[in-house]
């Protein structure tokens, strides 16, 4: 197995506030990884650093051995926490845009998933509910054949039934060499599909472990452990 994402003493400060503090992390290919932490723990900051939306204050983050930039964006499929798509666009127009933009985008996959979720490709984004918009975005992200998927809170705004479908979508569309990193605090919903979890708190990694090891050694679910570690 080779490393797809690596952080070396990664630090990000916003003024006097440290959002990410000397994080060292290695994530292998072919895994589904949960980046888990309470609100404001630095999850999104790490993901944004991986996408070059932010640059590190010190240390570095490497994707497949390279610093985030044009080359890494070809292999990274990113679901941001907020939508960046134009409201006036119709779904099929966005699909065309993505096809132009990414070599690894498979429109037929996208149309297939839209059909299953009963989303009309002719609808405009602005006529859709928040949950439906989130589904459309995830469909777009998962229709790429990327090496690394970075999903920032992919299930936050959707109902439990759609959540199941989204998890199925993630399972179905990632291949053995790809890695999926999911940041969330809705742990019980996703822990069955995770290989590996990274607990993060106040900008620092506090625990990395495989899900089965946690259950084996502590006899409790990742969700229960999270509640214990981050007890308020």
């Amino acid at each position, binding site marked *: 197995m080779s490393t797809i994402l690596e952080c070396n003493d990664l630090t990000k400060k916003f003024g006097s506030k440290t959002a990410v503090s000397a994080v060292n992390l290695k994530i292998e290919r*072919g*895994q*589904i990884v949960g980046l888990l932490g309470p609100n404001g723990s630095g999850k999104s900051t790490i993901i944004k650093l991986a996408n070059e939306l932010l640059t590190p204050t010190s240390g570095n983050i490497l994707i497949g051995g390279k610093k985030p930039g044009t080359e890494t964006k070809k292999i990274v499929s990113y679901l941001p926490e907020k939508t960046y798509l134009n409201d006036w666009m119709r779904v099929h127009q966005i699909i065309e845009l993505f096809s132009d933009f990414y070599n690894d985008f498979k429109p037929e996959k996208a149309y297939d998933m839209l059909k299953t979720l009963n989303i009309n490709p002719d609808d405009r984004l602005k006529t859709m509910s928040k949950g439906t918009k989130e589904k459309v975005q995830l469909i777009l992200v998962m229709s790429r054949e990327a090496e690394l998927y970075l999903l920032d809170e992919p299930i936050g705004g959707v109902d439990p039934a759609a959540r*199941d479908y989204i*998890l*199925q979508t993630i*399972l*179905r569309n990632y291949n*053995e060499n790809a890695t999926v990193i999911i940041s969330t605090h809705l742990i*019980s919903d996703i*822990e*069955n*599909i*995770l*290989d590996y979890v990274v607990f993060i708190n106040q900008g620092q990694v506090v625990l990395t472990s495989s*899900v*089965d090891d946690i*259950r*084996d050694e502590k*006899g*409790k*679910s990742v*969700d*229960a452990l999270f509640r214990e570690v981050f007890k308020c």
Partner: protein
Amino acid sequence: MPWELKSDRPIYTQLIEQIELMIFSGVYPLGSKLPSVRDMAQEAAVNPNTMQKALVKLEEDGLIITHRTSGRSITEDARMVEMAKTKLAQEQISDFLEKMQLMGFEQKEILTIIDNMVKEMKK
């Protein structure tokens, strides 16, 4: 058969138990082909790596056979299945006996209760 996974035990051990049950109950008959890892993982809503781990363990135990080119199938050796079945029964019964002892029952009493219950069920 729906997959039921509890949250306080490793997922792969639970997958092993459930696949064993499906073999014993004939959902997967002797010699039959298993679906692909990916399909099975999706059906159980678990990570394919976890399903893979469970299948490898079942292979070590001799219940599943991997063919180099055509995927996995259930063993055709009925003895293997019988042995695994007996082992599972023994585990369940020893759990049960332990609990009964905690409640303060003697072995004879336990047997009498079981005997009576079986007779009841037959009627």
